[in-house]
Structure formats: C-alpha cells, structure tokens
C-alpha cells in the first residue's frame, strides 16, 4: 500500500506546471510505472475473460481480447448450456457460482463479525483492565503471530474432523471465530490511546466494565473497528487453504476453492481460461466495491494508529 501514501514535504506545487524538472519527471515516470505494474494483472484478467478460449493461445502477446466474446461471463452465471460452452472452446464444466458466492459471503461475514467482536473484547482486557500478568500474557499472545498458519492447519483439521464438522460451515468458520492475534494487537493499540477521563467519569456514574465497553469504548472505536472488519473480511474472502481442507461439499465450498477446482478438468487438458478469469473477476468484485467505498477510511485509520 506504499503507493497510496503521498509525501507531503515542501510546499505544495502543481506537478505539471513550472519549469521542467528532471527529478519530478523521474518520480512521475516511476509512479506511472508502479501504477501500470499493479493494474496490468487486473487488465489481463479482464482481457482474458473477454477472449475466446480457442484463440487465446495463438494470441498470447496481444494486449486486446482475442476474439472478443462475452460467453465466459455467461458461463459463470450459468446462462450457457454445456454444449454451447464447448462449442465456444470453453469447458462444459459449470461453476456453482451463486452457491459459492453465498458460501463465501457467509464464511467471510460470520468470521469477520465474530473475530472483530471477540478481539475487541480481548483488546479491551489487555488495554483497559489491570490484572496480574497482563503484559506477559499479551507478549505470549503476540508471539503466536510468529507461528506460521501452516503449523496449525493439521491439528485444527484433525480437531474439526473429530468433531464431525467437516464439510460444514461451522467447521469452516470455527478456527477464525474467536480472535486473531493481529486483530487484538490492532484494537489494543487503539484502546491504549483512548482517554481515561470519560471512562473514569462513567465509573463514577456507576457503570461497570460491560457497560463501559459497549456504550463508551466501542462507539468511540467505530473507525478502527470498520478498518479491522474490512481487513478481516478481505483476508477471509481470499482465504484458500483452510476452506480447501474442510469445505469440499457444495454446501460449504467457497469461491476461491470453487475456482481452483474449476481450473482442472480432464488430466492434461488446458483450463477454460476465459471462464476461469471471468469467474475470478466476478468473485473479486465484492471486495473491490468494499475497498472503493471504505478504502480511504482504512488508509486514514492506519495512518492514525501509526503516527501516535
């Protein structure tokens, strides 16, 4: 996200007026290059989605769609029959798009709501309550951020399996449900900076921790909560490995996994690239929309936390 932060040193100058400045030209070129490099993959996804499969291989170096065609999107939304799809050089495979989309929304929504809520409570305990060994416990907590998720994947899988929760939404969300160390750390940083006076005033009025948390701390933390929620949601939306292990039934398969499966048809057969890219594009859209609406807020709140 470094490209988003603009340096604010020196007086504000309009970039395209005044005498020619080599430094500025170089900076602008680099910036343009960085933007191009980050946008190009998205463009390539779109270009492939709008192409016809049979023409893709021969036109791999062409920037424009090869044989412009909307069939891939029709395939994604199930508007095309298998024989039509095959005639277009796609695969007859269908992707159960709406079901997977719903699963992805459920998976990301539930985990986000719960993780943010429980992490905020934990962060409150770590920042506003005084108890013996608090900082030691917190350090231990932070240390768990250093454990790569792959280490816990197998034990978690066995646990979920033994609970009989494989192929269920509950099994899918359970490991993410209560907290993540990052979320606690993130919220704690914010809570630490909240003024004590309001809280003390509330206590004098007889409010207990429960009430302070819900009526004072949480409302005041709306901005960071929104940020955390968005970050968590995006992370969950893109999660692949755990849903791949646990959610293999149609009822519990999320979009990322669905797309991965869609990729392989017959052994050695080439994937239906345009269908795959169209589905990828459509599945990325909810997150892109969320980011377009809340993106500025994220940047602001991260900046806010970082400068203190």
């Amino acid at each position, binding site marked *: 996200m470094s490209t988003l932060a603009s340096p604010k040193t020196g007086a504000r100058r309009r970039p395209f007026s005044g005498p020619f400045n080599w430094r500025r030209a170089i900076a602008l070129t680099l910036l343009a290059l960085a933007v191009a490099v980050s946008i190009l993959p998205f463009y390539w996804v779109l270009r492939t989605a709008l192409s*016809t*499969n*049979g*023409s*893709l*291989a*021969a036109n*791999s170096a062409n920037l424009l769609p090869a*044989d412009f065609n909307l069939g891939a999107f029709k395939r994604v939304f199930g508007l095309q*029959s*298998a*024989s039509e799809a*095959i005639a277009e*050089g796609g*695969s*007859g*495979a*269908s992707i159960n798009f709406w079901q997977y989309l719903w699963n992805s929304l459920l998976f990301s929504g539930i985990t986000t*709501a*719960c993780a*943010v*809520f*429980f992490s905020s409570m934990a962060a409150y305990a770590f920042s506003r309550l005084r108890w013996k060994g608090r900082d030691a416990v917190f350090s231990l907590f932070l240390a768990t951020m250093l454990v790569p998720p792959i280490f816990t994947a197998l034990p978690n899988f066995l646990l979920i399996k033994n*609970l*009989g*929760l*494989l*192929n*269920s939404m*509950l099994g899918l969300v*359970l490991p993410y*449900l209560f907290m993540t160390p990052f979320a606690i750390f993130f919220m704690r940083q914010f809570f630490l900076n909240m003024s004590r006076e309001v809280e003390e005033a509330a206590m004098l009025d007889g409010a207990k921790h429960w009430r302070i948390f819900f009526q004072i701390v949480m409302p005041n933390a709306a901005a960071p909560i929104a940020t955390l929620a968005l970050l968590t949601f995006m992370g969950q939306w893109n999660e692949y490995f755990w849903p791949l292990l646990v959610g*293999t*039934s149609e009822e519990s398969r999320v979009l990322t996994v669905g797309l991965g*499966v*869609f*990729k*392989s*048809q*017959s*052994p*050695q*057969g*080439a*994937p239906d690239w345009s269908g795959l890219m169209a589905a990828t594009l459509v599945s990325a859209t909810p997150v892109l929309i969320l980011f377009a609406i809340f993106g500025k807020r994220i940047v602001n709140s991260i900046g806010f936390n970082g400068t203190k």
Partner: protein
Amino acid sequence: MMNKKAFGAVAVAAAAALALSACSGGSAGGDTAKGEISYWLWDANQLPAYQQCAADFTKANPDITVKITQTGWDDYWSKITNGMASGTAPDVFTDHLSKYPDFLKTKQLVALDDAVTKDKVDLAQYNEGLADLWVGQDGKRYGLPKDWDTIALFYNQKMATDAGITPEQMGSLSWNPQDGGSYEKAIARLTVDKNGKRGDEAGFDKNNVAVYGLGLPGSDAENAGQTQWSYLSATTGWTTTDKNPWGTHFNYDDKKLQETIDWWASLAAKGYMPKLETTVGANAADSFGAGKAAINSNGSWMIGQYTGYKGINVGIAPTPQGPDGKRASMFNGLADSIWAGTKKKDAAIKWVEYLGSAACQDVVASKAVVFPAISTSSEKAADAFKAKNVDVTAFTQHVKDKTTFMLPITDNASKVAGIMKPAMDAVLAGKSPASSLTAANEQVNALFAK
C-alpha cells in the same frame, strides 16, 4: 455480531454434530429401483452426451432419474474417497483403471457379475480386452466399459510443411533408442531457434529455442508414461510389470526402459524439447496452441482440445514404429462403477447397464469427444469425427492392428507414483542418469514384498 445466546447455539450445534457423526456410517445396501440416483464424472466435455443419456434413460425408466455431477479431475478423486469415508459418495461414478484397485482393497465397489448374468449383458460387444480390465483379483467384475483411448502425435501442419516434412513422412516415422531414428530427425528439423536456424542445422542455438520439435507435459510417472514415453518404451519389448493386471514386480530397472528414458531426456538436453523446469505450471496443449511446439504426443480424449485452437491446422500422425517394427500405444479404458454404499442398488445397476449399452454409447459417439467401448459405437464415433473434418485413424489404427497394451493395473498405485515421480523428474531434468531408476524400482518392489 454474536451475542451470548448465539454462542450457546453454536456450542449446541457443535455437540449435536458430534453426536450425529458418531452414529453415521455403517449400514449400506438396499435395493430400490426408483428415485434419484447420483452419477459423477470428471470430463466436462462429455457432460452434454451423458445428460442426453440420462434423459433417454429416464424416458425408458420413468421411476428413475439421474443427477449428474461433474467435478474436475484434481478434485474428483479426493471427493470420491472422502465421500466413501463419510457415506456421501455417488451411487454410480466414472472409474479409472489406476484408481479402482484402491477401491477394491477397501471393498467400496459393487460386484456386477450377478446382474451381468441375469440381464445377459453381452461382454463381447466391447473392444477386445476392455471388459477384462475390470475383473478384480477376486475374479469378480467391478465395472462396465464406457470408452477407451490410445495415443497419437498431434502436429502443427504448417510447421511440418515449412520444414519440408510431408504428412506421409509424419505418418511413417520410426524410432529406436540409440539414435532416435527418423522420429528424432523430424523432431530436430521441426525445432527452430530464435535466429530461425533449425535443430538439424549448423549453428543451432539450443539455449534460445523459439519452437520445440516435441512438447513436454511433464514426466507422467503417475500413469506409467501413458502419453509421454510408454508408446516408445513398449516398442522395445519392455513391460511395466511382470504381468498385467495385478502385477507385483516392476521393471524400471530394465536396460530397455532406461535406454528409452535416456534418449527421451536427451531431447531436452539437445534443445529439441523444453526443459522440465520450464513446463511447471504451463499447459503443454496451450503451448502447442501458441505455436511453441510442433509435435505433442497425447491421448485421444484430447482431440477436441487440439482441434479447438483457432488458427492452427492440426495433423494427427500415428506414433512411430519402434525397434520391433511395430507401433505401440497404451490402451486405457474407463468404466462405470457402483459404490458399495448405495441405497439404490437396483436402480444403479440399471443405469450402469444403460451406460454400457449401445443406446448410450451411440449418443456419446455422436458427440465426437471420445471413443466408446462398444466396437460398433466407436466406429460411429470415428465417423462423427470425420464429419467434423478430423481424421482419427492414427488412434483407431492401434486397435485395428492390435498394437495396444494395457495400462498397468496394480495395487499401491499412489505409492508407486509417489516414488517414481521424483525419480523420473530427476532423470528428465538431467540431474541423474536413467540408471538411477533402478534404485527407485527397488523401493517400488519393496511395496509388494510384504
């Protein structure tokens, strides 16, 4: 957000699920000849044909409907295995020779002998040998053949013409493990470097190749070189196992195989074939479609893929004749099997018999995707391909000339693949000579020593 009550609900749900899981599984069988049965397959290209079959079937048997689910190859087998363990496998599914021994071991398939006798299924209608492949070590039959495939060479006709190679020459190539014969000459001739120099010309730059003579999809140790090298090794008289099916001794230590593999790996070293590491994550067929390779050896199920590339005129040539003066192709056949846990066994048997009948296989033939197992139906498929302007003689010739050999069927298939793949990859990558396969072979044979 989750409140206390909801959390309680979650805990209850978890406990309930736990209790349920404890008493599931177990009982199987039952024999209703009505209701909905589930059928799984992996090849999306065949989906329309089988949807047609299912509709026709229901018309003839109004009490039974068939729900078809297609799942990509990578996911297909794990879903079936998981389904068998958790009691949610399909009633009927497309089965593969390399996978079904594992299912037999765990008793997951229904033996079809009684039904075949009772309903007088004519096993002679299938292409020779196909039906026998599905008889297990216990002598019982576990599948009815649905289709077969052989190997041929897909080549880029324009590249061949540019190189001065006629279709007749492409159709009469010969090969030997010492100098590669006219097959290697054609591959070298079709290889072009960035400066336009051909592989058989002086000054050929093997490190900057624009078009490879032969494409490489990987070492394919999993399926005993089905599409990559078995059509070569078999012409030396080599066989994968001591007997087939149900061999218990592998022959990867045989010099005949090792010479073949050494020759094959040398193509990459000479710059005629891509290096293994450059093919990881890439698709060989797409590279062919992009004009980066002139010849690809591949199976008949890929005809649709190869002829589907726009702007490329694809020729199909038979595999080269080997030292024994003959061509060779692995012969692989799929079948439909019934899961032992089905609750609708009678309906499932009816459906499998229909899938194995000329009625359904003619429908499959008419779509020109694969060759059905029934001889008369596969002739119809050849005609359907012809109607699409695709000459498939290179594939059917193997069956007519009886130059096929069966895909090796053994126990421990996945363990064998686990040992052979890294060993074969190392040879192909030029990291070890083919003689290193001897050590891998010992490990493989040790699996059967118990």
